Each structure stands twice: as structure tokens, then as C-alpha cells.
């Protein structure tokens, strides 16, 4: 009678005791960071300006630096989008990453090849958009939220031509109603065309089998978030290249 032998993988004990191996490292790093922080705090004082005065608005008024990415987005989108809807989508988008990303590769180790598109998407959203917008907002925006190079004097009377027009106007629409219809079609067209393009792109780089595993719900959520993220550079391009202010103008909101 054949003996039942449990086929186990060779027991690899790659575990070490937390005490002392991890606690020691944490202790040393904490001490090091603590010393740096104390030296920093001895050397550089936290800012304290004149007392609060609600009747005197400084120009420029800047939000805390970590929100300057959002304030910078206000250049391209209205506050309800840049300040409320898009941040909400960023938070929701971050939270659902683990449920959208079904790639089992790269769980618990550094790699690039196996997760190229995931990493590039994160890199684009975090480094290219979020961090660079913060840098622009912090160092390159002066009075009137105008662009200044760091070596330029902040001239509060800098003259900037207001030449922005709405996209339907640029396309030749002069009637209010038809401008709105045109804008709505452009916005909807952007989402439809981009979603289809996103589908074809995923089909190309990941294959049909992946799309089937991914499922319709995951695809639609990922596509809408991805396309919304790309709407920021798209709008930036339209503004910088063609001076487009709004794409869609309605009595209630503008996009």
C-alpha cells in the first residue's frame, strides 16, 4: 500500500525575529530622522506673518502647498470640478485600485515588466500630474495666479490678454442653444471615443483573454476614471494651444 505522503514545498524559513532585526532598524532610522528634524527645527523657523486681517486679501492667496495641485487645476476647470468632483474621483480612484488591478504578478516585490501599464498609469497620475501641478502652483504662480519664472519679479500689474474663448465659439457657433448642444456633443464624444480607444488599447496590449477576466464592470470603472484623468491634460492642451475656456456652457455649470 502506497504510503500517503503529503507533498509539501520544501520548507523555506525565510523569517527572522522582529526583535531584534526589525525593531533595531526602526529605532536607528527613527533616531536619524529625529535628529534631522531637530536640526531643521533649530535652523528654520515656522512662518508667522502679520495678524489675520479678513479685509486685506494677499495677492496671490495660495492654499497650503499640498493642495496647490488642486488650486492649479482651477486654471483649467471650474471650482466645482477642480475642487470637488475631481478630488473626490482621485480619492475613490485610489481606493479602488486593488479591485481594478487583477494582475496577480508583482505582489510583494519590485518589478516593472510584469506591471508596466499599472505602474506607468500611477506614475502619470501621481508624478506627472499631481506633483508637477504642485510644483507649478508653488514656484511658478504669482499675483493674479499669473505665470512667473522664479527669477522674475512678481509684478501685480502684469498685463495678461484675456483671449480665451469657448470651444463652440471657436468652431463657429454663435447661437446660445446650439453652442450648448455642440459642447455637450464634444464632451460626450470625448468620453465615448476615449473609452472605445481605451478598449482597443487594452485589447491590443493585454489581449482578449485578459478583458474577459477583467469583466465589464471593472472595465467601465477603470475606463471612466482613466479617461477623466486624461481630461486634465486634454483641457490643458486646448487652453494652452487654442485658448479654449469652456467646452460646454450651460446655465447651471460649465465644463
Amino acid at each position, binding site marked *: 500500500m502506497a504510503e500517503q505522503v503529503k507533498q509539501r*514545498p520544501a520548507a523555506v524559513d*525565510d*523569517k*527572522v*525575529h*522582529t*526583535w*531584534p532585526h*526589525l*525593531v533595531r*532598524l*526602526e529605532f536607528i532610522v*527613527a533616531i536619524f*530622522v529625529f535628529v534631522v*528634524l531637530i536640526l*531643521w*527645527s*533649530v535652523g*528654520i*523657523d*515656522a512662518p*508667522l*506673518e*502679520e*495678524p*489675520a*486681517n*479678513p479685509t*486685506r*486679501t494677499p495677492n496671490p*492667496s*495660495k*492654499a*497650503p*502647498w*499640498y*493642495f496647490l495641485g488642486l*488650486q492649479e487645476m482651477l486654471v483649467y476647470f471650474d*471650482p*466645482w470640478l*477642480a*475642487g*470637488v*468632483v475631481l478630488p473626490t474621483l482621485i*480619492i475613490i480612484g*485610489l*481606493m479602488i*485600485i*486593488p*479591485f481594478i*488591478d487583477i494582475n496577480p504578478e508583482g*505582489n*510583494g*516585490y*519590485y518589478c516593472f515588466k510584469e*506591471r508596466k501599464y499599472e*505602474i506607468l498609469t*500611477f506614475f502619470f497620475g501621481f508624478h506627472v500630474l499631481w506633483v508637477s501641478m504642485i510644483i507649478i502652483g508653488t514656484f511658478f504662480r504669482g499675483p493674479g495666479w499669473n505665470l512667473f519664472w522664479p527669477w522674475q519679479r512678481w509684478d501685480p500689474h502684469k498685463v495678461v490678454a484675456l483671449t480665451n474663448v469657448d470651444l463652440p465659439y471657436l468652431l463657429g457657433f454663435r447661437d446660445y442653444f446650439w453652442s450648448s448642444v455642440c459642447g455637450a456633443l464634444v464632451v460626450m464624444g470625448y468620453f465615448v471615443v476615449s473609452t472605445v480607444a481605451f478598449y482597443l488599447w487594452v485589447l491590443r496590449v493585454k489581449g482578449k483573454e485578459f478583458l474577459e477576466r477583467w469583466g465589464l464592470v471593472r472595465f467601465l470603472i477603470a475606463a471612466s476614471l482613466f479617461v477623466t484623468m486624461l481630461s486634465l491634460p486634454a483641457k490643458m492642451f486646448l487652453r494652452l494651444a487654442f485658448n479654449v475656456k469652456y467646452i460646454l456652457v450651460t446655465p*447651471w*455649470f460649465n465644463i
Partner: protein
Amino acid sequence: MSLKFLEDLKKDIVENQVWKAIFRHGYEDTPRNRVLMVTANVFLHLHPAKVRRHGVRMRFTWCMGGLTFFMFLITVVTGIYLMFYYRPVAEYAYADMKYLEFDMPFGMLMRNMHRWAAHTMVVFVWLHMFRVFLTGSYKPPREFNWVVGVLLLVLTLLLSFTGYLLPWDQLSIWAVTVGSNMARASPVLGHEGPFAEFVGANPIYDARAFLFGGGEIGPHTLLRFYILHCIFIPMIASILMAVHFWRIRRDGFSGPSL
């Protein structure tokens, strides 16, 4: 002979009821004691007793999660010191800042450390998120802990933001004014947002007024942000941190499958 004396002294200190009530195991470097050091200590037992070798390495973790927590602890300690001398009342707040700066022993140092540690915490929490993304550590079974982590990231920003108002100087009120103008533009809930007219939102009755405790930034806002900053958000963050650490302890450090 003197060694004998020291041995006896050690015995007197260690082998009695009081010592043993506090310290339950010896310090000899045995595997058992190494585990007990972690499991028998309420603070250290945030860790698993054993971790995978690669998870200890700094080039894997960047130490960012732990350091973010360390920054939080520093802001708690320095923040409590500041709370002794600071009154969240519009008439006094700014004067108390000056008082802290010029009269209190270590007042300026504590304020500097509080502020710089808060900024550092924001940066560290972003780096921590970036690291966890790069190592794919949010993948099953750790999806939920990533969600908790995102909430903690948002709370970190809110903690920093509410604290920004407290010095009650020009920098703070205008930064907070600009930062919270977005609440005014919330769809439906903000009086300048789309569709606000359908629910009757107006400058003194909308999302921003709820945040400010009034239509404009003022003394009421200062007290509100003080309570959010010192009690409410730290409390919520502490609960979520407990969940976050507990999950790491249960699931272990992420790593390549064996």
C-alpha cells in the same frame, strides 16, 4: 567579591514580586525571549513576532510607513505642548503664538518641530503609498488595508489643513479661505456650485458655512478647526491606524510567494 555583590544586588532587584509583575521574561538572547519581547509588549506587538527577511530590508520598505507613524507621534507630543499655551480664541490666538515664540522655553522649537513634522508626514505618507504601489502590496489579501491607507492619507491632509488655520495670521486665514472655497462650489451643497438654487443653498447655509460655522472665516471657524485638529481627526485617524497596523500584523509583510 565585588562581582558577588553585584550578582546579589541584581538578584534583589530582579527576583521579587514587583519586578516580575512588570517584566515577565528575562533578557537572555534566546528565541523564546525574542518572541516574547514582541508579543509581551503592548507597543511592540504592533509587529508580527517574525517577519520575512526581505521585508526587514530598507530598500524594500523605505521605512516610510513606520516613519509616517513616527511623524504622527512627534506632532502629538509637540502638539500637546503647544496646547498648554494656545487659546483658540480670535483675540488671543495670534498673541499666544508670539508668546510661544518669545517667552515660552522651547516654545519656538516645539512649534517648528510640529510644523516641519506635519509637512514631512504629508511627504512620507505619499512616499509610503508610492512604495506600496510599486511593490504591489495592495494585492490580495491586502486590498482593504490599501483602502484604509487611502483614508489615512486623506486624514493626514485634513489634519495638516485644519492646523494651518490655528496661528491666525495672514498666511493661515487666506490659505484656509482659498483651500475651502472649493466647498462653496460643491455641486448642490455649495451656494456657488451647480444646482445649488434647487436646494436653497446660500452663503450662510451651505457646505462651507457648515465647515466654517458661519458664512465667513471667523472666530467660530478657529474654534471649529481647533477641535477638528486636536480631537476629532486625530481620534478617527488613531482608530484607522489601529486597523491599518492590525491588518499588517495579521497578513504579515507582503513578499514574493515562496
